């Protein structure tokens, strides 16, 4: 629009120039009839288009038309009377030009057209184009034509300015496209007038889609923080900071996804109206980093471990609350000092070694001793991690130190207690072993000599005495059995475990066959689920199976159709083996006594036994990390359940 105005202005100026030149040309031509010329001149003079002044070469004016008077703001009297000298109307910088024109006038009769300024009556200036000529036959009187070129000058200035603007505009656009940020320019009324490529990429809009849209399309609806942007876009705040206004808000892409942005707004007044330029930066990553950072800071702050930052030379750079609590130095006291304030003198060499390893980028875990401000020595568990810079060089070192003084003390106490318990247990086992053996020798004496006596004195003893001797022999035999059982029970815990895959089904089958062979008069149905294996000690597996099966065999002795079953089932979510019989069963009331050594639920006369068998079974199962339980009903039978975890839970070691 502005350019169009300018072009029209130029056009009219050119027309007037032509007219002027024609007029001057006419004035110069004496051949043309003077009358003709005069009438033309008076017409020109009256038209008001051009100022006309007639005067002498000393600067006094004899005639001036209305146009020139309007132009200069003086009355005709003031000009013609000589009260105002022509020279005085010209600002000093234009007087040389005037002088040249006058001398030209004198020599050639025509003063060249030249631009200059006059000083108006009110002191302002007016730009003019002046041409002069000597009047016919005169040597001192001349006529000057003065054209007001104020508008032309303005137009020219505008053209220059526009040209500069256009250059600036191109530069601006270039700048816009190379800017790292997405840029949106908002015009008067909040409509988007300009975006750059980065904006298109960030928001997913093509330039053509978004220009003309209100700024609000870039903001999630109902977002109070984001509404701040549209407010700022419409109302330029007063008292702006020099860098413009900066906002952190959420923005919305074309696809509706939202993301955090930082907007820097700046305002500019342009001939086309006020513009708001928004430089937009996606701060998703920054937010995430900030969140991570604040989370990490919170962790570091809340940690009861001492977290200490230090340079590669071991100078402390950061010191958290945990470090204050652990070592007694405040952050102020510690930061800036060497980490050696924590290192006991006798471990001074450790510091250099740690720094040297950390400098290679290696993370170190070590248990060592550190000194508090008060001089107390702490046992610490330390993690020393090199911190790498972007180029992967070791930039700093981070220490995490945990005071484990008490834990270590507890640990030692625990280890001590465990060792004591193990020793005591071992002593007890050794004791019972040697007691059992030591008991066996005299017992063998009792048994053997009673037998010898019975044999040798057969004729001299009455039947009752003989019966007593037999009872001695039988009692000794029974006691020997008990001792053997006791030894086999102690053997369960005395020996180290071997882990092997054991086919329990095969063991049960073999034990059943042995029992059947030993008691031919006791036909028992044995149902064995084939292929049931467990990982356990094979010797103890044999003891386990023989005891359980022997137990079932014994208690089905009086059953009508003795039946023993071995299989596997799921109980409480675990693979559980079971041995079930339909024998004498037991009262669940006495369940507690079932697995205790020497506890028997049946009279010796009814079912003989040592009372050690089930205790042995229980110990074997427990030693393999398993569990044993039993269910029974008197007269209906019993079921023994046991688990053998695939890997013993440390009990195997």
């Amino acid at each position, binding site marked *: 629009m502005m350019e169009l105005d300018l072009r029209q202005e130029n056009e009219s100026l050119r027309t007037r120039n032509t007219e002027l030149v024609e007029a001057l040309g006419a004035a110069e031509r004496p051949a043309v009839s003077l009358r003709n010329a005069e009438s033309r001149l008076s017409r020109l003079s009256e038209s008001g288009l051009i100022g006309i002044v007639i005067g002498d070469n000393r600067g006094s004016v004899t005639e001036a038309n209305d146009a020139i008077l309007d132009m200069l703001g003086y009355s005709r009297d003031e000009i013609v009377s000589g009260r105002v000298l022509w020279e005085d109307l010209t600002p000093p910088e234009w007087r040389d030009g005037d002088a040249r024109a006058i001398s030209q006038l004198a020599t050639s009769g025509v003063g060249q057209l030249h631009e200059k300024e006059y000083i108006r009556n009110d002191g302002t200036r007016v730009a003019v184009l002046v041409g002069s000529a000597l009047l016919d036959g005169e040597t001192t009187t001349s006529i000057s034509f003065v054209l007001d070129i104020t508008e032309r000058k303005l137009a020219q200035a505008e053209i220059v300015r526009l040209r500069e603007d256009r250059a600036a505009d191109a530069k601006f656009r270039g700048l816009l496209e190379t800017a790292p940020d997405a840029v949106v320019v908002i015009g008067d009324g909040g409509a988007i007038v300009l975006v750059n490529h980065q904006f298109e990429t960030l928001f997913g809009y093509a330039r053509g889609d978004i220009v003309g849209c209100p700024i609000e399309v870039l903001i999630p609806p109902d977002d109070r923080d984001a509404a701040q942007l549209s407010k700022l876009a419409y109302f330029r705040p007063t008292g702006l900071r020099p860098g413009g206004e900066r906002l952190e808000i959420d923005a919305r892409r074309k696809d509706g996804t939202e993301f955090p942005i930082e907007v820097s707004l700046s305002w500019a007044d342009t001939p086309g109206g006020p513009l708001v330029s928004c430089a937009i930066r996606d701060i998703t990553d920054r937010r995430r980093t900030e969140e991570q950072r604040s989370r990490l800071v919170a962790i570091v702050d809340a940690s009861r471990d001492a977290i200490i930052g230090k340079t590669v030379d071991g100078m402390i750079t950061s010191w958290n609350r945990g470090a204050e609590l652990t070592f007694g130095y405040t952050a102020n006291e510690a930061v800036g000092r060497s980490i050696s304030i924590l290192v006991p003198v006798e471990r001074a060499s450790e510091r250099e070694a740690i720094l040297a390893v950390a400098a290679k980028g290696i993370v170190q875990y070590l248990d060592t001793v550190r000194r508090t401000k008060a001089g107390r020595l702490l046992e610490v568990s330390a993690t020393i991690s090199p911190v790498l810079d972007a180029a992967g060089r070791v930039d700093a070192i981070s220490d995490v130190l945990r005071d484990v003084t008490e834990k270590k003390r507890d640990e030692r106490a625990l280890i001590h207690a465990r060792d004591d318990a193990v020793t005591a247990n071992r002593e007890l086992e050794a004791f019972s072993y040697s007691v059992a053996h030591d008991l066996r020798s005299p017992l*063998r004496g009792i048994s053997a000599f009673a037998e010898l006596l019975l044999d040798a004195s057969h004729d001299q003893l009455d039947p009752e005495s003989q019966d007593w001797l037999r009872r001695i022999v039988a009692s000794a*035999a029974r006691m020997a059995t008990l001792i053997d059982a006791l030894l086999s029970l102690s053997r369960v815990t005395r020996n180290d475990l071997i882990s092997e895959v054991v086919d329990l089904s095969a063991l049960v089958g073999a034990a059943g066959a042995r029992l059947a062979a030993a008691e031919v008069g006791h036909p028992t149905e044995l149902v064995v689920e084939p292929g049931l294996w467990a990982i356990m000690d094979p010797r103890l597996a044999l003891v386990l199976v023989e005891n359980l099966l022997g137990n079932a065999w014994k208690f089905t002795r009086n059953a009508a159709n003795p039946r023993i079953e071995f299989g596997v089932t799921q109980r409480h979510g675990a693979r559980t083996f079971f041995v079930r019989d339909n024998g004498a069963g037991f009262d669940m009331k006495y369940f507690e006594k079932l697995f205790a050594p020497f506890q028997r639920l049946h009279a010796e006369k009814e079912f003989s036994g040592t009372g050690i068998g089930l205790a042995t079974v229980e110990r074997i199962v427990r030693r393999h990390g398993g569990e044993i339980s039993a269910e029974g009903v008197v007269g209906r039978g019993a079921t023994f359940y046991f688990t053998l975890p695939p890997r013993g839970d440390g009990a195997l070691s």
Partner: protein
Amino acid sequence: MTPSILLVEDNASDEQLTLRALRTSSIACEVTVARDGAAALDYLFANGPHEGRDTSVLPWVVLLDLNLPKLGGLEVLRRLRNDDRTRSLPVVVLTSSNEQDDISAACALGCNAYVQKLMGFGAFAEAVRVLSVFWLTLNERVPPRRPATIPPR
């Protein structure tokens, strides 16, 4: 030559029972009794009270208890096997222990047999009888060495 046996036994009852069992086994033999491990070694190597005894004269079999005062049966066995004079001397471990560890250790040290003392005289006597029949009549002995072949100590 009368067969001879060295019985290493600290328990008086067991000694009595063993001697009685040997008497009833109808095999004539000479029995020497050592009541601890050290005494057994003194006898075999002719030390202490047995100084001057001809060490080339060895019993046909040693019946060795494990649980002995002063020097245990296993240690006695180790020393016998470490000495050229007694390296091939037949040693039968006769003990009340049937612990797997004891059996393994005794066999590893080179006992010639491991027999558990059974409860009741009948069973015990039968075991002793079988042993004496085997070692005193069936088994071929290593010929006694002549003194010249004894390596210098």
